[in-house]
C-alpha cells in the first residue's frame, strides 16, 4: 500500500505540471491581444488608442518572455490566484468557488439517482436472467447509451414541465429544481453501471463459493445479498469513479440547458463573452478536482479489494 501510494503521489506533480502547461497554453492560443480585448470591454464601441494598449500590455506583463509568464502564472495558480475575469473584474477562483457547490450538488444527486436506478435493475436482471426484467434492463441500457443528455433533457423538460406541469423547467434553489437535471445526468451513467452490475454479478454467481453457500442451505436472498454482491460490486466502484469525469463534463451541457448556476454554465457563458482567463481557470480547476477524485477512487478500490497487488502501477 505504501509503495503504491508513494508512486501515485510521485506521479501527481508531473501530471499537475502538464495540466497547468495545457491550461496556460490555452490562453495563448486565443485569437487577439488580451490588452485590446480588455480595453474594448471597458469602453465598448470605442477604438482603443495604441498607447493605452501598449501601456496595458506593460502593466499586464504581456511582453515578457513566455517561460517567465508561465512561471508567474503558475506561482499565482499555486497560491490560489487564477487571475481575474475580463468581464466582472473579480477573482476567478472566487467565482468558481461560488459556483462549485451547485455543480457538486448536481453531481452527487445524479450519482445517487444513477445508483438508485441501476443497482436494483442490474441485480434483478442478473438474478432473473432471461426474464422480462432482464429484457427491460437490456433495452434501457441500450437507450441510456444512445440517447444524448441534451435530447433526454429537452424531452424530460417538455414532458414533465411543459405538458404535465409536475416540475419546474429551469431554476435553482428548491429540491424540485434538482430532479430534472439530476435525472438527465444520472440516466447516462446508470446505463453503463447497470450493464456492469449485471455482468459482474453473473460472473460471481457462477463461482464455486456461491454454489457452496447454496449447498449449505443458505437462503437465496442471503446468498445474493451477503455473499455474491460483496464482490460483484467491486468493479462498480471503479466505474463510479470514472463516471464522475463524465458527470463533470456532462454537467456543462445539462447546466446550460436547465439554467443551473454551476461551474459548467459559468464556463459556457464565459466562452460567448470571450472571457478567456475564465475558460483557462475552469479547465485547470476541473482537471485538478477530477484528478483528486480519481486518486481517491483508486485508493478506495485498492483498499476494498485486498486481492489486488499494491506494488503494481495502476493503469
Amino acid at each position, binding site marked *: 500500500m505504501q509503495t503504491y501510494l508513494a508512486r501515485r503521489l510521485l506521479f501527481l506533480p508531473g501530471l499537475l505540471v502538464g495540466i497547468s502547461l*495545457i491550461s496556460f497554453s490555452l490562453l495563448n492560443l486565443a485569437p487577439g491581444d488580451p490588452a485590446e480585448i480588455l480595453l474594448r470591454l471597458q469602453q465598448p464601441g470605442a477604438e482603443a488608442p495604441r498607447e493605452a494598449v501598449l501601456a496595458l500590455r506593460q502593466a499586464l506583463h504581456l511582453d515578457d518572455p513566455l517561460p517567465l509568464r508561465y512561471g508567474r502564472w503558475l506561482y499565482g495558480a499555486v497560491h490560489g490566484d487564477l487571475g481575474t475575469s475580463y468581464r466582472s473584474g473579480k477573482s476567478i477562483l472566487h467565482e468558481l468557488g461560488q459556483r462549485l457547490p451547485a455543480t457538486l450538488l448536481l453531481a452527487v444527486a445524479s450519482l445517487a439517482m444513477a445508483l438508485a436506478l441501476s443497482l436494483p435493475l442490474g441485480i434483478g436482471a442478473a438474478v432473473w436472467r432471461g426474464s422480462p426484467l432482464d429484457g427491460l434492463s437490456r433495452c434501457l441500457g441500450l437507450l441510456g447509451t444512445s440517447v444524448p443528455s441534451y435530447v433526454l433533457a429537452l424531452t424530460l423538460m417538455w414532458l414533465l414541465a411543459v405538458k404535465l406541469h409536475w416540475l419546474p423547467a429551469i431554476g435553482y434553489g428548491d429540491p424540485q429544481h434538482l430532479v430534472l437535471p439530476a435525472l438527465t445526468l444520472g440516466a447516462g451513467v446508470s446505463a453503463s453501471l447497470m450493464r456492469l452490475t449485471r455482468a459482474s454479478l453473473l460472473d460471481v454467481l457462477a463461482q464455486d463459493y456461491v454454489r457452496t453457500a447454496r449447498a449449505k442451505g443458505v437462503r437465496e436472498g442471503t446468498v445474493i445479498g451477503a455473499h455474491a454482491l460483496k464482490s460483484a460490486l467491486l468493479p462498480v466502484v471503479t466505474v463510479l469513479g470514472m463516471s464522475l469525469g463524465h458527470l463533470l463534463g456532462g454537467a456543462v451541457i445539462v447546466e446550460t440547458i436547465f439554467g443551473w448556476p454551476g461551474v459548467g454554465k459559468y464556463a*459556457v457563458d464565459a466562452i460567448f463573452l470571450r472571457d478567456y482567463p475564465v475558460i483557462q481557470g475552469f479547465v485547470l480547476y476541473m482537471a485538478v478536482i477530477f484528478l483528486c477524485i480519481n486518486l481517491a477512487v483508486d485508493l478506495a478500490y485498492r483498499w476494498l479489494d485486498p486481492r489486488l497487488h499494491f506494488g503494481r502501477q495502476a493503469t
Partner: protein
Amino acid sequence: MRGQGAVKASLAHVRGLWNQHALLWLLSRLRLAIRGPLRPFWRDPAAVAGLSLITVVLMAALGSPLLAPHDPTAVNLEQRLLAPNRHFPLGTDHLGRDELSRLLYGARTTLATASVVLATVMAIACTLGTLAGYYGGWRDTVIMSLVDLLLAFPALILAVAIVGTLGPSLTHAMLALATVWWAGYARLIRGMVLAVRQREFIEAARALGASDTRIMLHHVWRNTLGPLMVLATLDMGGIILGIAGLNFLGLGTQPPTPEWGVMLSDGRPFMQSAPRMMLYPGVALCLVVLGFNLLGDGLRDALDPMNQWTYERVE
C-alpha cells in the same frame, strides 16, 4: 511523341489492372469475412437492425440533394412554424425553412463531420500508438506521458475549453474533439502493437531483412487494423454525440448550415408551441447513435477476441 503516348497508355492500362486487382482483392476479402468470421453477425437481429439503420441514414445523407423537396436554408418568414402539410411533409421551422430538407441535409453534416473526426483521431492514434508500442524507449515514454496527461482531463471539458478559446466554428469543434479523443485509442493501439511485436512472424520478417517501416506498415498494422475497425464503429456513436453536443451549445456549426444539434437548440424556444422542431432532430440523433451502438456490439460479439479489449463483457 507517339512513344510517349504509348507509355502513357500502357501506364494507364497497368493502373487500371491494379485498380481492378485491388478491387477484386477487397471484394474477395469482404466475402471471406462475411462468410467466415462475420457469420454470427448476420444471425444477430440487433446487429442487422443497426446496420440497416445506418444504411438508411447514410442513403439519406448521400441522397439529400435528390430527396430534399426544398432548399434547406431558404428562409420564408410568411411560412414560419407551419404544421406538417402536403407541401412541407414535416412542417417548417421558426424561419419558415422546410424541416424535412434540413433533416436530410443535417444527416450529411453530422455524418461527414463525425467521419472526419474519426479519421483524424485514428490517424493520430495509429501513428503515435504504433511508434510507442513498436520502438518503446524514450518515444514510448514521451507519447504515453502525453496520453496520460490528456486522459487526466475530463474529455468534454477540455474540448469545450479548446473551442471556447479558438472561437466557435465547426472546424474548431472538430479539431477540439480530435485533440481530446485520440489519447484512449493510442494507448489501446500501443497495447495491441506490443502484443503483435512478440509474435514469431515479426522476428521472421526482421530476419529476412525487412526495415522497421515495412514491418510496421505490413506486418504489425495488418494484424491490428481489424480489431481497430470494430472499435471505431463502437465509438462512432460517441463522436456523433460529442460533436452534436458542441453544436447544440452553439460552439460548432454556425447557422444557417443544417445540423441536428443546431436544429435541436433552435427548437428549444418553441418547446410549447412546436415541440416537433425538437422531436425530429432528437429522434434522428438517437436512431443514428443507436444504429452505431447496435452495429458495434454485434461486430464485437461476432469477432470474439475483441472482448479482451473492452472492460464490460456483455454476453
